[in-house]
């Protein structure tokens, strides 16, 4: 369930924002994430940002996965 994709907020006007993903952009609602700022990545589900994506966590997860891949290759 719950298709939600990460999109970059390019501009904000009232409770709506212009968000971009992979070269396409769409007006989304920030009713559920009023604290979102330009430059944030948000998870967009049916036109609403349901959460701000934690970019630091994303990088840490990728680092972890790379470490696992390396360990498994060596082991």
């Amino acid at each position, binding site marked *: *369930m*719950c*298709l*939600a*994709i*990460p999109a*970059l907020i390019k501009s904000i006007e009232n409770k709506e924002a212009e968000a971009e*993903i*992979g070269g396409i952009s769409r*007006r989304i*609602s920030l*009713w*559920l*994430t*009023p*604290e979102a700022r330009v430059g944030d*990545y948000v*998870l967009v*589900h*049916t*036109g*609403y940002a*349901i*959460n701000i*994506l*934690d*970019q630091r*966590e*994303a990088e*840490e*997860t*990728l680092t972890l*996965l*790379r470490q*696992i*891949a*390396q*360990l*498994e*290759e060596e*082991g």
Partner: protein
Amino acid sequence: MKYISEFRRSELAQGLLSQIQRQSKTPVRFMEFCGGHTVTIFRYGIRQLLPKTIEMVSGPGCPICVTANADLDKAIALAQVPGVIIATFGDMLRVPGSRSSLQETKAVGGDVRTVYSTMDALKVAEDNPDNSVVFLGIGFETTAPTIAASILQAEEKGLKNYYVLSLHKLCPPVIKALLDWSEVKLHGLICPGHVSAIIGSHPWEFIARDYGIPCVISGFEVLDILQSVSMLVNQVENGKSQVEIAYRRGVRPEGNQQALKLMRQVFEPAPAQWRGMGEVQGSGLKLRKKYQRFDAELAFDIKSGPTSEPAGCICGDILRGVKTPADCQLFGKTCTPQYPVGPCMVSSEGSCSAYYFYGVSLGE
């Protein structure tokens, strides 16, 4: 695409598969509750790549599949009311009710429009002041707050012609019911990622604490699923049972407080009918008294007629993980994606649809 493509890298997937192969000794059965996870698992052939010690079973986390026929019949009846425009997510269009479907109703003159978002439905209401626009509110806790927001926006705009038919479902109560019926022994649960983005990790803790079943909250990309399976294996092999968040970029333990606030402002828990499971207390949402004027159930005299279940359809058993589509007499014969009998075959993330489209027994 940022934060999607990186989580589909095949070389990182190999590392995780290797880790799982190495660690998994105990035979286990894991359930992925969420239909979106089912789709990823089938799309990438993950079941074939996991060691024989791990059996995956799909759960009832497909809001289309679990919508009871009686509720779908209500939506279809509403579509037949003159002056009513039904705005719905595309998922519901082809699901067969007792006698018809929304698509068929549209073909004979019902005004049924597919929308991507309630934002679009609100616009339809604004553009058609002489019609009543009824939004079909399906989905779990990921979607319910967006519907709540739409009602608050309708209130702000002073819209008099926007209604919602609330068929929303809540996940933790139905997982509890599943575990209580203990028809299927589970050793781990992959928890829905976007539902958790809203409700956080605390609502799942009862599963680990009271049932001793490890839980991992997972994202939807192939690396997310593999990482979650690896974390479950790790818990099992170390005799732990706790709730872990693998999807750390999308889920905070406390969830999205604003979304929860709006959801609770507009909705309150109510009993709900789940296909194949009957009524589960507190597992649905209904509009609070303050927002009654937006409630389609109250605004319209819905005559949906008697409900019937399609003969031979075992969607209910499949949703509970008790049977698989291969066990169904109708699967692939009288029930196909082109001529679906039950919703599990129509919904893009229903088990039957996944089995049919991705050919589950492909040992290549």
